[in-house]
């Protein structure tokens, strides 16, 4: 895969899946606390999501940071839109905004 192909894969993935989390590890085995926290939050809200393990491919890891111009992992997308990382997801969960957003965009 080239960097360009990785970017296309990222674009396709976020457009074809309702909720996507670019993370370290998998939803069943997160490899970092921040990625794990996002998984926990989404599971807690009963959300069905796709996890993409950026540790599986350096081009993916680089690619997602290029795609959003956001330097850290995890990165959460809902209906193709970049919502934020662990901090923003946590704040939105606490305020009820995340549940609202998920209700408006059912998977």
């Amino acid at each position, binding site marked *: 895969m080239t960097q360009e192909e990785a970017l296309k894969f990222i674009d396709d993935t976020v457009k074809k899946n309702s909720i996507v989390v670019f993370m370290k590890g998998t939803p069943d085995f997160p490899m*970092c606390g*921040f990625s794990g926290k996002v998984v926990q939050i989404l599971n807690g809200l009963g959300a069905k999501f796709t996890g993409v393990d950026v540790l599986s491919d350096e081009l993916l890891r680089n690619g997602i940071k290029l795609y959003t111009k*956001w*330097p*850290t992992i995890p990165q959460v997308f809902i209906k193709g839109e*970049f*919502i*934020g*990382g*662990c*901090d*923003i997801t946590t*704040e*939105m969960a606490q305020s009820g905004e995340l549940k609202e957003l998920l209700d408006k965009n059912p998977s």
Partner: protein
Amino acid sequence: MLSVEQIAELIRAQLPDSEVYLRDLTGGGDHFEAFVISDSFEGKTRMQQHKLVMDALSELLKGPLHALTIKTYTQQSWKRSQEAQ
């Protein structure tokens, strides 16, 4: 290994009116928590606010800074959060 002073300086260079409180989360100089208080955050989305802080630290994030937890406030929301405790 990074120091809180290095990181705070970079944030203040980007946001000159800001108050910055930093915590080294692991003691290892590569995972930090930043509380950034600035009225320039007024009217901006969370993502825009966090992006400003990320941009200030973009070079470090490419290298020695592995993880950054960001909490942003305006002067008013900071005061409210302190009073709530």
